[in-house]
């Protein structure tokens, strides 16, 4: 029987062992390093990090993952964590990280200058890096912009059977509802959520792009979606996605009331960072001119830095008034929002 003592298996094992050893040996670095736990996908951060490395000679080590899991990893590693920076794509998780005690305060004149106060932690535990807006996206041939006004109005019975929204498992919907609770209180928001659910054209399924496609195909008339998904469809290599994107338009709700619901992607320096100064340098780099333009150009997100004009695609969708609620609030109210959506029957 040759399964275990064949030379092939042995070679395989020895290769595996050497791989293990190679990874354990961390190379010594001249320019210093920054270690990042990132909930932003590699594609949406790596090019910027490479730029930073080239500019400063600082090496960057990256692990990507899901927010809650990275936070758990950070917590369980405690004082020995190798991570210097936690990057997330949602403010709620940064607030949770602060609460868990794994972040430290950072004070930097550059950061405070670059980032409006609604998009950073009041005490400097974390800073926003890009703004993500969640407007109404509607079918141009079936809905007149004049019929639309606010998120609140979507619960009215005129929209019965005309709305597609993704599942309440999505952090974007959880944040939206958390924002509603912050503005209107729990009881009113629950009544609104029930009205909205009653207007669903179908039981929630799929992602934001799927909702936009369903609107284009006529399964429903409008949806709530983050703009960068629509932007991704406009520039997609898939022609059906491009065609679908051409059939819909963006409406900025709540222009005269609370403003459009926005969330941020952001980052905070960890409490036990070994490379604190380099991490701050990186934060400043990410909120500076070049990086801010990149967010807009590559992923159709809005710059957090008001001095930077948005990209052409973003300008074409028009200007909007953003909700000025501090995004930290969204994190505080997230659990309430999830329970409320359970009660409202939002799957």
């Amino acid at each position, binding site marked *: 029987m040759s399964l275990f003592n064949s030379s092939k298996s042995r070679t*395989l094992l020895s290769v595996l062992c050497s791989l293990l050893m190679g990874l354990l040996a961390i190379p010594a670095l001249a320019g210093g390093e920054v270690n990042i736990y990132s909930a932003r996908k590699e594609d949406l951060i790596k090019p910027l990090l490479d730029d930073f490395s080239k500019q400063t000679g600082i090496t960057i080590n990256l692990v*990507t993952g899901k927010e809650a899991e990275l936070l758990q990893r950070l917590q369980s590693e405690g004082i*020995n964590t*190798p991570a210097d920076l936690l990057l997330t794509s949602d403010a709620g998780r940064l607030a949770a990280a602060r609460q868990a005690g794994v972040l430290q305060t950072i004070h930097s004149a550059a950061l405070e200058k670059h980032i409006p106060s609604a998009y950073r932690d009041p005490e400097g535990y974390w800073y926003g890096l890009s703004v993500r807006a969640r407007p109404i996206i509607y079918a141009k041939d079936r809905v007149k912009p004049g019929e639309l006004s606010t998120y609140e109005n979507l619960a009215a019975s005129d929209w019965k059977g005309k709305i597609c929204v993704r599942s309440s498992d999505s952090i974007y919907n*959880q944040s939206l509802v958390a924002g509603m609770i912050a503005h209107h209180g729990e009881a009113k928001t629950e009544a609104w959520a029930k009205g909205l659910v009653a207007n669903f054209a179908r*039981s929630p399924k799929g992602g934001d792009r799927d909702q936009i496609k369903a609107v284009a195909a006529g399964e429903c008339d409008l949806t709530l979606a983050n703009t960068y998904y629509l932007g991704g469809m406009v520039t997609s290599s898939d022609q059906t996605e491009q065609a679908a994107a051409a059939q819909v338009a963006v409406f900025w709700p709540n222009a005269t009331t609370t403003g459009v619901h926005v969330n941020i992607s952001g980052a905070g320096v960890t409490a036990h960072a070994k490379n604190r100064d380099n991490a701050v340098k990186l934060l400043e780099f990410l909120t500076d001119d070049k990086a801010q333009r990149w967010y807009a150009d590559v992923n159709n997100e809005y710059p957090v830095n008001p001095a930077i004009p948005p990209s052409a695609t973003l300008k074409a969708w028009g200007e909007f008034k953003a909700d000025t609620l501090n995004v930290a609030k969204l994190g505080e109210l997230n659990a309430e929002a*999830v329970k409320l959506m359970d009660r409202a029957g939002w799957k």
Partner: protein
Amino acid sequence: MEVDPSAPPCPYSQSFSQSKRDIEPLSLSRRAKSTWIGARGFDRWTLLVVGVALLLALPVFAVFFTALQPAGDVWRHLVDTVLADYVLNSVALMLGVGLGTLIIGAPTAWLTAICEFPGRRWFEWALLLPMAIPAYIIAYTYTGLLDFAGPVQTLLRETFGWSRQDYAFPEIRSLPGAVLMLALVLYPYVYLLARAAFLEQSAAVLEVSRSLGAGPWRRFLAVTLPLARPALIAGMSLVQMEALADYGAVQYFGISTFTTGIFRVWFGMNDPTAAAQLAALLLLFVFTLLVLERLSRRQARFHHTGQRTQRPLRLQLTGRWQWLATGTCLLPLLFGFLIPAGQLAVWTWRTAPKVIDDRFLELTSHSLLLASGSALLILLLALLLGYGQRLQPRPMVQLAVRGAGLGYAAPGAVLAIGVMLPFAAIDRTVDGWAREWLGLSTGLLLSGTLFAMLFAYCTQFLPVALHSVEAGLTRIRPSMDDAARTLGAKPRQVLWRVHIPILRSSLLTALLMVFVDVLKELPATLILRPFNFNTLAVRAYELASDERLADSASFALAIVLAGIGPVILLSRAISRARSGYDPLS
């Protein structure tokens, strides 16, 4: 000396046990005695098996430990709102996928193992291919094809001038849709184990039934199928555990199951304790099912009298039967592999130049090394536990082995946290000790290393290998062991020289299943991997979760392609092992 069973126990325990031994059947007492005399070997095996099993159950213990802490008011809320949905959907998913994989897997396994029909040699390995497609990927591709906005329905609307209200089209993103998707990619587990069982079935049994005048149907239903029961059950329980633990596909289809509930409570309500309690409930449920299954076949024995007798006579199918057989095998292949892989290939064709860069080779080699290394490691562990359990089938050992096999039913992310917590505790303890006594920090020794990942794979995929090894071992008569032992072989030698050669096809099956599973594995890799370390599955997931399905196709297809080579090689080896051709003998 007679003992009345209704009499109160004798206060002198020694004399009682003495009297009890006296009335035991001769063979039993002799057996007990002989193992007792060989106490060293016996004790060592028990210790080893229980020790390894406990170590592998560490993550499960960590989950239960976390679950013991008091949780907030989340339970009240869950019971009032969504818990019933979670339970019903999970049970329906589990039963549906189990049944679906049985219906697809058992007949195709029998046809390719026993019969001869056009394309049989080809189907033998091709039927395994759907296994290489991750469940969430097949869910995405079929949604793209069958959705209201997809090409199939659009074509229908354009051809007949219909609009939305004019026709009814089954919704793929539904519970039946999820059952279908999971059954299509999971049936190979049943197929593989069933086929190995059919192949290892002694030709003599079939010849006897044939000589007694049983027709092919009768032989299949009354002899072959019941004899393959351990393998079928093993395959189905694997599949059902995987269905219970699935997150990606059901979440995309908008179905609330127990597993999506765990993540909702954990991420959305930020309550890790309640999430751990939900996970612990899920594991308890699976554990109960596994124990019940074991009890239900306690009396039955499935050994075979002969092993690898003469080259089997394949049942030559003719006329419409042979085409029916070809069709039966073609359908799962078409829907489980050709269509989704075709869609992936179309997407890859369009997007590959954009997404494939010089890191592609590195990703592929990471995936292949991890998969092959952990497959070998896990096979060794499974052999150790399976054989240890055979040597010493005491309740304690059996319980330990069942417990070690629980990980498979846990959602990967929960298990990964279960690995992370104890490892971090060990790191903290060692570090604290070193700081105090040596004045230096040892930092993180286990957390964030490849070792942690390998350990997670072991706990997660051990049951896959274990089921295959166990199903194979049950088919070997204990008298084989006895004969070898009588001839002076030690237990270790019996395993090496008797069992492993007989079990070759079961072992290869186990190796293959674990290899492909690790290749596809995502959640544990995502949470536990070291800095700057990515795999094909991680890359495919990152793009897919950003809703860039077409861009993720290249990496998903690479997983599929990486899985095909071993599938073909091992399938050939399994056939060879069966056909009596042994290159080493």
